[in-house]
């Protein structure tokens, strides 16, 4: 891996590039929030960021630690009650891109954020679905950001919290969903997109310094590569500067690393 930036920075930068000024994004805390705000501060100044706490078209100067930080409300075009956010704005079909994280992700981009182990007596009780089950169905499409390890990209989920492409193929359509579902997964190693036909996640781009074998080793299923897999362009100086400034402001504001 080339020096000068971390895999995590590469992941956030790659995700940010998939966004445009026309997008209305439903943003989660952490890497999704970093990617969306990086896009807003670089190539997509018109992007509209929506957080489930009710803030619409918010322009935070620092990254929120929680989904309901005061900074989000203070810099928003408007703030609505949470019931309205889920009824009118998410369910109403107003969001172009939903950003999701994942504790576990399978080859069809189904997501588990509920439990590791059995539901009734879990080994690890995870936080749960939050907004994700409906973000996954109501947004025009969804992007997933995840660390690329075999514990995250697993062969079989312990629990399907948020439906991606189900068992693949036309499974979404069979359930009556008219939205596109997960169209991009960005990890710290590569970018994956669902195959047009089977909907199985396929590596379409490797980050700088990553070999196919690195990805195979870090993936819990025999991962496929697209023909002519590309090389993700490294972060530009501008992207890195803006991202690091954002993180620096955030650390100062929150009194510790975010």
């Amino acid at each position, binding site marked *: 891996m080339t020096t000068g930036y971390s895999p995590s920075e590469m992941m956030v930068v790659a995700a940010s590039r998939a966004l445009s000024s026309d997008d209305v994004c439903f943003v989660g*805390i*952490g890497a999704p929030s970093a990617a969306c705000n990086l896009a807003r501060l670089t190539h997509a100044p018109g992007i509209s960021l929506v957080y*489930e*706490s*009710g*803030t619409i078209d918010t322009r935070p100067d620092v990254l*929120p*630690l*929680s*989904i*309901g*930080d*005061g900074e*989000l*409300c203070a810099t928003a075009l408007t*703030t609505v*009650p*949470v*019931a309205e*956010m*889920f*009824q009118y704005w*998410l*369910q109403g079909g107003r969001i172009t891109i939903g950003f999701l994280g994942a504790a576990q992700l399978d080859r069809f981009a*189904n997501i588990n954020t*509920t439990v590791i182990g059995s*539901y009734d*007596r*879990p*080994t*690890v*009780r995870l*936080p*749960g*679905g*939050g*907004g*994700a*089950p*409906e973000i996954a*169905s*109501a947004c025009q499409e969804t992007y997933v950001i995840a660390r690329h390890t075999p514990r995250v990209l697993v062969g079989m989920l312990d*629990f*399907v*919290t*948020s*439906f991606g492409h*189900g068992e693949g193929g036309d*499974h*979404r359509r069979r*359930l*009556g*969903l008219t939205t596109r579902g997960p169209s991009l997964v960005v990890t710290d190693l590569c970018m994956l997109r669902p195959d047009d036909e089977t909907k199985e996640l396929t590596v379409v781009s490797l980050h700088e310094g990553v070999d196919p074998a690195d990805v195979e080793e870090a993936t819990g299923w025999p991962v496929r590569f697209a023909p002519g897999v590309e090389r993700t362009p490294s972060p530009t100086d501008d992207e890195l500067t803006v991202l690091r400034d954002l993180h620096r402001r955030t650390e100062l504001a*929150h*009194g*510790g690393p*975010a």
Partner: protein
Amino acid sequence: MATIVPLQEAIATTVADGDTVAMEGFTHLIPFAAGHEIIRQGRRELTLVRMTPDLVYDQLIGAGCASKLVFSWGGNPGVGSLHRLRDAVEHDWPGPLELEEHSHAAMANAYWAGAAGLPFAPLRGYVGSDLRDVNPRIAEVTCPFTGESLAAVPALRPDVAIIHAQRADRDGNVLLEGIVGVQKEAVLAAARAVVTVEEIVDDLAAPSPNSIVLPRWAVDAVAVVPGGARPSYTSGYYDRDNAFYRAWDDISRDRDRFTAWIAEHVRREAP
């Protein structure tokens, strides 16, 4: 009709063992002081309802006040796990904790239905999610016009809703502003409503005709508790204590350390 009373009285007259209690606040305006008063009064067997069980529910669960949790996301936002919640679910400490688990959309709709006097809310939700299999209170309803099948959740109708707000006037009308979450819905869905406020003022001075104001006849008890949302925040009054949220990760990880913290910071200290 709202009466303005001390916090101790507000909780003692509204919260009984076995009640279903919804303490709401979405990062903003979380009613910590009221939660601590419930711990001090030693309530037991509560069903706690909240979209995002935050530190306040971690504390109530760890202190043994709850037997059931109705929720949709239970973590320490931006930090990690709620260790007391996990310990209860994973190891039954200090006792078993039954879970009724929803998505945010379903919880918000369930409060909406409760506020709207409906027995259920329809939503486009839970499609393909295993949550349907583990929560029997997620059903289906068919649109009588299109034949589409939608998810349905029963209305939330807590015995008591408890929220924190910026201020009340002397009649007990309450104003909240900023991120307002599902607090209005929780108050209107509940049989009884308690509001802690930063201050009592002569005039609510709503910044616009459309701020969220709860009229005095939608509230039962108002208690003045400056700082009542700390370590969460009250817009216009004080910021979120992010350092405490981080520190909680260590405090709550260990049962003894947690218990000592509650003894020192909650049981010993009345506001």
